[in-house]
C-alpha cells in the first residue's frame, strides 16, 4: 500500500509541514488533552528521540515534573545527554542500579544532572530518567503526574504493570515495526487476554483504553527516498510513512573507481539505487558461513578504501564516509563475532558490528547486512521475524547492501507460513514470510552475483 495519491486541488505533500503538524498535535494532547495516555507510533528515523526530548522539555517548562521510562541503560544515558544538550540548566535526575559502572561516565561532566540509585535522592527534579527495570523497584514515592515511556513497543506488558502505579498519565512512544519483546518461559495460556504479560505494553494499554489518542509520525528523516517506500510497504502496510528527503537530496559518491570485483560492483549499485544484493552461489552453510562473512568484510573494506563521500540535506558539503558511519548487521551473535574477526584481519576497526536486537534505534550512512536466511536449510520463526528484517533494512541514510546466498526465495517457498493463530490476539502486520518475499523481490532488482 502506498501513500494516498495527492488529490487535485490538495497541497502537495510537504514533509516538514506534515511532521510539524503531527508533532504539534501530539504535544497538544500530551500537555492539554483530557486522556490519561497518548500513543505515538514512530517509523524508523521519524524523530522519535527528538519528540521525546521536546515533550519532556515542554512539560518541565510548564512546571510539570515528569519521569521518563526507557528500556536500556544506553537509551537512558542517551536521553539524559540529549536533554542536557538542549537545556543545560534543566535539573535532571539519572536513577541507576547499584551495579558497578551503572551509567555512562559522560554524565559526570554535566553539572545539572544528579545521579543516584535511590529515587528519594532525586525527588523534586524536573525530569527523572531510568530504565523500566529500575523503576519497577521504586516504591513508596509520591506518584508523578506525568511520564514518558520510550520504546514502548519493546516493553513488555508486565514491565508496564510494575511501573504504571508511579504515574498518573503518560506519553507512550515507540516503533511498532521493530523486534517484539519475548518471554523465555511458557506464556501461551494468556494469549488473547488484554493484559497478556508477554505482550507489548502498547498492546495492553490500547486493549484496555481503546479511546486513547493515537498519533503517527508520518515522515522518516533517516531513510532515503529509495528506501522509505519499500520499508513502509513491507513492514508498515497499514500505517504508511514517507521519506523526508527526495532522491536529489542524497548522494553517495566514491573517489576510487570500481575494480570490477563483486564488492565494488555492489557498492556502485547501492550508491546509485540505495540497495544492493551481493549474491553468493547457493549453498547450505553453517551460521558463520566463512565466504559470506568474508564477503561482508570485503564490502566494508572497499567502502572505506574507495574514499566515499555522502551528500545530504544536512550540509552543503559532502561528508566523508568514515568507519563510524558504517554498520554491519547480523541475526546472531556468533555471526557478528565472525564478522568482527574478518574485519580485524583486513585491518578495519571502529565499524559497528552487531545483531539486529542491538542495532535497534541506531543510524548509519551505509549498512551491510548478512541476510538472516543466507545459506540456511530451513526458515524458522526466529529467522522470519518481521522485526528482525525491518531493523536490519532500516538503519541507513544512504544505502543498504545485503550479502546473501542464492536460493532464499526457494527456501521460503519450501517453508510456507504455518503460523499458529491465537484467538483474540490482535494480528500484527505484516507476516514475516510475506515481508521476506517482498524485500527479496525488490533486492533481486539490484543483484550482483559473485563467486568469491
Amino acid at each position: 500500500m502506498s501513500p494516498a495519491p495527492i488529490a487535485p486541488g490538495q497541497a502537495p505533500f510537504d514533509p516538514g509541514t506534515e511532521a510539524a503538524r503531527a508533532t504539534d498535535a501530539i504535544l497538544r494532547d500530551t500537555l492539554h488533552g483530557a486522556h490519561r495516555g497518548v500513543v505515538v507510533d514512530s517509523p524508523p528515523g521519524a524523530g522519535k528521540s527528538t519528540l521525546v526530548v521536546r515533550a519532556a522539555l515542554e512539560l518541565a517548562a510548564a512546571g510539570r515534573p515528569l519521569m521518563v521510562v526507557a528500556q536500556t541503560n544506553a537509551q537512558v544515558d542517551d536521553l539524559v545527554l540529549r536533554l542536557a544538550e538542549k537545556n543545560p540548566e534543566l535539573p535532571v535526575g539519572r536513577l541507576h542500579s547499584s551495579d558497578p559502572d551503572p551509567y555512562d561516565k559522560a554524565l559526570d561532566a554535566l553539572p545539572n544532572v544528579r545521579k543516584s540509585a535511590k529515587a528519594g535522592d532525586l525527588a523534586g527534579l524536573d525530569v527523572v530518567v531510568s530504565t523500566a527495570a529500575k523503576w519497577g523497584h521504586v516504591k513508596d514515592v509520591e506518584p508523578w503526574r506525568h511520564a514518558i515511556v520510550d520504546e514502548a513497543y519493546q516493553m513488555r506488558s508486565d514491565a508496564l504493570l510494575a511501573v504504571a502505579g508511579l504515574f498518573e498519565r503518560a506519553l507512550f512512544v515507540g516503533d511498532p515495526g521493530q523486534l517484539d519483546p519475548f518471554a523465555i518461559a511458557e506464556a501461551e495460556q494468556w494469549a488473547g487476554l488484554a493484559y497478556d504479560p508477554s505482550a507489548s505494553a502498547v498492546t495492553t494499554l490500547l486493549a484496555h483504553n481503546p479511546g486513547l489518542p493515537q498519533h503517527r509520525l508520518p515522515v522518516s528523516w533517516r531513510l532515503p527516498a529509495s528506501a522509505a517506500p519499500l520499508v513502509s510497504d513491507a513492514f508498515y502496510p497499514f500505517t504508511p510513512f514517507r521519506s523526508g528527503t527526495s532522491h536529489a537530496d542524497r548522494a553517495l559518491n566514491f573517489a576510487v573507481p570500481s575494480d570490477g570485483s563483486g564488492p565494488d560492483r555492489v557498492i556502485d549499485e547501492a550508491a546509485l539505487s540505495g540497495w544492493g544484493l551481493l549474491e553468493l552461489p547457493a549453498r547450505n552453510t553453517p551460521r558463520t558461513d566463512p565466504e559470506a562473512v568474508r564477503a561482508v568484510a570485503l564490502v566494508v573494506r572497499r567502502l572505506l578504501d574507495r574514499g566515499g563521500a555522502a551528500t545530504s540535506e544536512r550540509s552543503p558539503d559532502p561528508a566523508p564516509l568514515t568507519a563510524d558511519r558504517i554498520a554491519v548487521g547480523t541475526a546472531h551473535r556468533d555471526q557478528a563475532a565472525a564478522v568482527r574477526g574478518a574485519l580485524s584481519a583486513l585491518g578495519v576497526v571502529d565499524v559497528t558490528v552487531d545483531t539486529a536486537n542491538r542495532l535497534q534505534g541506531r543510524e548509519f550512512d551505509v549498512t551491510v547486512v548478512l541476510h538472516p536466511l543466507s545459506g540456511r536449510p530451513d526458515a524458522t520463526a526466529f529467522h522470519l521475524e518481521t522485526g528482525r528484517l525491518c531493523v536490519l533494512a532500516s538503519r541507513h541514510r544512504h544505502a543498504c547492501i545485503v550479502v546473501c546466498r542464492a536460493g532464499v526465495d526457494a527456501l521460503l517457498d519450501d517453508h510456507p507460513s504455518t503460523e499458529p493463530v491465537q484467538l483474540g490476539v490482535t494480528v500484527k502486520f505484516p507476516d514475516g514470510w510475506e515481508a521476506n518475499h517482498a524485500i527479496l523481490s525488490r533486492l533481486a532488482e539490484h543483484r550482483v552475483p559473485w563467486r568469491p
Partner: protein
Amino acid sequence: MSLIDNLARLDAATTGRAQPRATVRHRHLSERPLVFVPLITAGETGAPLGALIGTERTSPLLLTVAQPRDRDLRFAFLSRLAEILLPYVESYADDVEAAERTEADPETGKRVKVEVELCADAPQLIVPSRAGIEFVRLLGRSMRFRRTAEQDPDAPYPAPPRVPLLGRWLTHYGERSRVPGSSLLLAMTDLLSRHWATGQSSLEEQHLGALLAWIEAPEGTSGADAALRAELARDADGQLLCPPAGPATDPAFDNQLLAPAIERHDRARTALAAAADGVEADALLAALGAAEREIDALVASRTRPTWDAVWRGLDALCTLPEAPSAVDRWRGDRWSFTGHRDRVAAGEPPQPRVDDAVTAANKLATREREQARLDAQEALDDPLVMAGRRLAGEAFAGEVTDVVMAYSEGRSPRPRPLVTVRTPDRPQLDEGVKAYRSLAGKPQSFQFVAHAPDGGLVLRLLDKMGRGKEPEPGSVPEVGDRLCWTLFEHEQRGGPRLPDPEDTPWTHGGPPRTEPAATPVGERPDPVTPEDIL
C-alpha cells in the same frame, strides 16, 4: 538443543541405541509416585474412556466408562478417580516441618518473617506423555466449577461429592507443571528425552514406546528396529502391537474393536431396561455385565503396555544419581503443594477460569526466574550440560597458570587478585564481562580484564575472600587448579514487586471488578444441556 546433544543423536542413529544427554538425574522422583495412564474418547472434549492408576506397579486400578457419552457413567468414573487420587494427595498433607516465609504484615505492610508449615514431602503424579499433562489440566478445568448436591441442591446434574475438589487439585498440578524444573506432575516422555538422545527427532520422541525401545535396547541389538516396531507394527487384524501412550486412541482400535463393543453394551442396556420380568432381567443383567467386562478388557489391553512402559522408564531414570539441585527444586514443589493445601483448607474458591493481570504477570515472572535457575543448576550439576554451555561460549574451563596479588584503589584497598587461566574454550568475552565459579556451593565473581600475551585469560577476583586485607585461605584459585567458570549467574535476582490485584493500574484495566453477585462469573458452573456431559 546444543550441538553436543545433536552429536549424541547422531551417535544414537548410527549405533541404534540411545546415548546419554545427562550424567545425573535432573528431576526429583518420589519414592511413591502415582502413575496415571488415561484414555479419552475421540471427538468429545475431555471425555474419559478409562484409565489405569495407582502407586503399585503390579496392581494398577482399572477404571472404565462403558458408554463415554453417558453422564452418570462419567460421573462414576470421576468419583472413583477422586476416591483413589484424593487419599493419595491427602496422605502427604499432615507430615510437616517448620519453615520460615517472608510475608507482608497485614497491619504495617512491612515484610516480616513468619513461621509456617512446610509439607515434608509431596505427592507426585506421572503421566505417559505431554498430552497426558494437557488432559490432567482439561479434567481439572472440567471438574472444579461443578456443583455437588450439597453445595447447590438445585444443580441440574449434581456432581459426586469429591469431584470438584479433585478438579482443583488437578488444576493446581497442571498449572505447576508449567514451571520449568518442577516435578509435581511429570510426563515420562519428557523425563526420558531430557536424559537420553535417540536416533529420531524430538517430535518422534513423543511416542513413549518408541522412545523406551531406544533406551532399553540391550547391547548388540538395534533400538532403532525395536522403536520402528513399537511405532508401526500391527497384528493380522490391523491393531497396533504397541498401542499409543494416549490419552488418544488409535482410530483402528476405535472403529474395529471399541465401537462394536460399545454398541453391544448399549444394546444390552436397552434390552435390560425393557425386560419383561425378573427372570429375563437376570439374564439380561448378566449380558450387560459381560458387555462391560469386554470394554474393561479392551481398555486394559490398551493401557497396560503403557503402564508398564512408564514403570520401566522410572527404572531407567533411577540408574542415574539424583542431581544435587533437584532436591532444592523439589523444595519449591513442596511449597507449592503446601500452599494449595492451605488454600483448600481455608475454604478459598476454585482457581478462576482466567488469571487476573497481576496473577498472570507474577506467574510469568516465576516461570522465567525458574527457567534461568534451572539452566544454571543443570549446568553446575552436570559436566555434560556444562559442556554444551562451554561450546556455546557461555562458560569455560581451564587451568590456572598464574596468580598475581593486586589491590583495589581507594582509602582501604581490598584484595583483587589477578588470575590467569589457560583454556581451550572460546567464551564470548567482552571487556568487563563477569564470570562466576562455584566456591563451596556459592558463586564467586570475577571480571574479565584482558587476553594475556600467551593467549590465556586474565580475570580479576572480586569477592568471597573474607574481610581482611589478605584473602582467606582457599578463597583464591592456585596455579595448577583446574576450574570452570560461567558467564551466566548461578542465582537469580528477584524481579520487581507487582502491585496487589486490587491496585491494578489503569493501563491494565484497573482493579478486577468485584461483582455484587454471590458467585463471581469466573467461578460459576458451566451451563449444562441434557446432551452434553462433563
